[in-house]
């Protein structure tokens, strides 16, 4: 009889996809409210607080391990920048706001409100501030209201982190008073309870409304940085074989800028929703947050943009000046989207969500696993639908790639360390700015590349050959920098910063 009943239930499940129990709209940032309608997705989402472990990835329950303590060359590279104070392993989405609030980079250094772009469900706050700047209120919003969001985003970016954070806390999260009391299901483990309780009724980490249209649950992008950045990429000449909708848009009349919410395919949206945050950015005090994709997504195309860019005050673009050497440095942050773009998975149309939010069968239904995490914890669902190969073999393939990448990265780290020491020695021996110019430029190039691969979080997996190429270049520039600093008194006549 068990078999019979069971098969009956499963047949039923295959029908009616979702039943809306409560209403959600643009102002509903509390994921628990959405969870009433979509309990399976909410369940996955709320598991992003769980501890997991893989060789190079995973998620800690406690504050994660420090990356700068693990790799001393990394700390040295960052001297002069907040990243030398505190830089840790990433962990699950539910922690993003908390982790930002408590990092020494925020508590010990002044940061801008733009930081919240990727660490909170900020759209309602942007919309509110945007409307308020025109003397209106949230009630006057036209749906998502892009113009208001853009205005508010710029206003919040120009604020200090502290002020912007306070605005975030002031925005209601769409949950009712009575609802709030009922929360934090007792059957969840302690950490989950804490994470969910941390922001009851106020600010939240990335939430359903950031990726979904509340009317129809369709995927969408909501981040000004991404919408602006991807339009610039589309307007460039860089081939994008992995993003067919851009190539299609380019063949059109281009009367309207490329708009991912209009032009992108559903499969592309399954990556774009992540590319709202998992990208290289600038978010310092001297310019509004932007994604540097005007020339393309490759490491040297971004570098070229930075090299040629001036701040509004006319000074050349840079992130910081290296304390020990005085070199102007570009800082790379988590360029997952950029590196993925150079890999064969992207070319084959495999999206972030395919691997990080694989479909999982719940009875007769297939739902996207909203426990966004390392695919290595989930190889059968993440990889085996495409690669019908034993789990251990797939794990071994990844490990081969990651171990190679790790070894080459450490090699580049030592080279950069050697270079810095050589420049320091030259300075101590009396080399002047002119005599150190070439070495410092090489330091910038070497660090930019090493940082790009290190800051990227897949340990090379997203595009193995490209990551190795970048590291090879980093090593070349680092050792050339060491040579330039060593020969500062008698530079060889032809020394040009060769490409």
């Amino acid at each position, binding site marked *: *009889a*068990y*078999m*019979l009943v*069971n*098969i*009956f239930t*499963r*047949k039923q499940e*295959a029908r009616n996809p979702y039943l809306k129990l409560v209403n959600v709209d643009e102002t509903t940032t509390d994921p628990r409210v959405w969870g009433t309608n979509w309990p399976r997705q909410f369940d996955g989402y709320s598991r992003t607080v769980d501890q997991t472990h893989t060789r190079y990835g995973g998620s800690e329950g406690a504050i994660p391990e420090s990356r700068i303590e693990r790799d001393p060359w990394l700390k040295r590279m960052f001297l002069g920048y907040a990243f030398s104070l505190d830089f840790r392993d990433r962990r699950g989405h539910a922690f993003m706001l908390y982790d930002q609030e408590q990092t020494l980079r925020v508590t010990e250094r002044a940061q801008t409100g733009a930081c919240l772009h990727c660490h909170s469900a900020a759209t309602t706050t942007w919309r509110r501030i945007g409307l308020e700047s025109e003397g209106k209120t949230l009630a006057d919003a036209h749906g998502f209201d892009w113009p208001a969001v853009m205005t508010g985003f710029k206003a919040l970016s120009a604020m200090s982190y502290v002020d912007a954070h306070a605005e975030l806390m002031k925005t209601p999260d769409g949950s009712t008073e009575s609802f709030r009391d009922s929360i934090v299901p007792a059957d969840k483990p302690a950490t989950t309870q804490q994470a969910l309780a941390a922001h009851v009724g106020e600010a939240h980490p990335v939430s359903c409304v950031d990726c979904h249209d509340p009317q129809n649950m369709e995927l969408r992008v909501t981040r000004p940085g991404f919408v602006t950045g991807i339009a610039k990429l589309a307007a460039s000449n860089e081939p994008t074989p992995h993003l067919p909708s851009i190539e299609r848009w380019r063949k059109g009349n281009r009367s309207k800028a490329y708009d991912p919410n209009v032009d992108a395919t559903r499969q592309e949206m399954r990556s774009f929703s992540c590319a709202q945050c998992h990208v290289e950015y600038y978010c310092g005090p001297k310019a509004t947050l932007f994604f540097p994709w005007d020339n393309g997504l490759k490491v040297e195309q971004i570098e070229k943009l930075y090299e040629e860019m001036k701040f509004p005050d006319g000074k050349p673009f840079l992130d910081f000046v290296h304390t020990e050497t005085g070199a102007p440095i570009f800082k790379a942050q988590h360029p997952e989207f950029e590196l993925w773009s150079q890999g064969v998975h992207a070319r084959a149309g495999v999206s972030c969500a395919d691997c990080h939010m694989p479909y999982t*069968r719940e009875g*007769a239904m297939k739902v996207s696993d909203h426990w966004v995490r390392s695919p290595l914890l989930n190889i*059968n*669902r993440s990889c*085996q*639908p495409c690669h*019908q190969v034993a789990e251990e073999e797939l794990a071994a393939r990844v490990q081969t790639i990651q171990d190679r990448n790790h070894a080459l990265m450490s090699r580049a780290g030592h080279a950069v360390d050697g270079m810095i020491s050589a420049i320091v020695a030259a300075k101590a021996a009396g080399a002047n700015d002119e005599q150190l110019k070439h070495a410092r430029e090489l330091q910038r190039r070497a660090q930019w590349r090493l940082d790009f691969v290190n800051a990227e979080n897949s340990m090379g997996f997203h595009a193995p050959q490209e990551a190795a190429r970048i590291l090879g270049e980093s090593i070349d520039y680092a050792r050339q920098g060491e040579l330039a600093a060593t020969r500062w008194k008698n530079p060889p006549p032809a020394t040009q910063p060769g490409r």
Partner: protein
Amino acid sequence: MRGPSPNRSIRPWLALAIPIGLAAGLGLYTFSYAEGLSYLSNDPGACNNCHIMNDQYNGWLKGSHHAVATCNDCHVPAGFVEKYLSKAANGYHHSKGFTLQDFHEPIMIKANNAKILQDNCLRCHGDLVHEVVAGATTAADAVKCVHCHRSVGHGPTR
């Protein structure tokens, strides 16, 4: 050329014993409600009665063979007795897997079924490939058709 190993040939008999036992009780009703009897049909829709077969069904629709071969042409042995033996064995696996939900997902073909499949490729294409196969189709040394033709049955997405 190596003959079929006794081991491989005995297993379906063993497996058959179990559904017979099950059929004596409520099991028979269960089996038929779940369209278990669709194994006895050649209609691909019959396999697709089971949502778990949706991916393969959809893939088959996109595969190069959907006009020339149905599920059974590839997945069930050709001879009459062999056909129903295999159907009984697989039918048992499927009902059990479906009911207990304890199978590996995604479904991956097992060695014995992979061999049946290969035999069926050769049933239709033996003449074409007889020179390249040159005898070895069953041992570890087999030229496995699906090594290259990964997508014949279920299209490029598989």
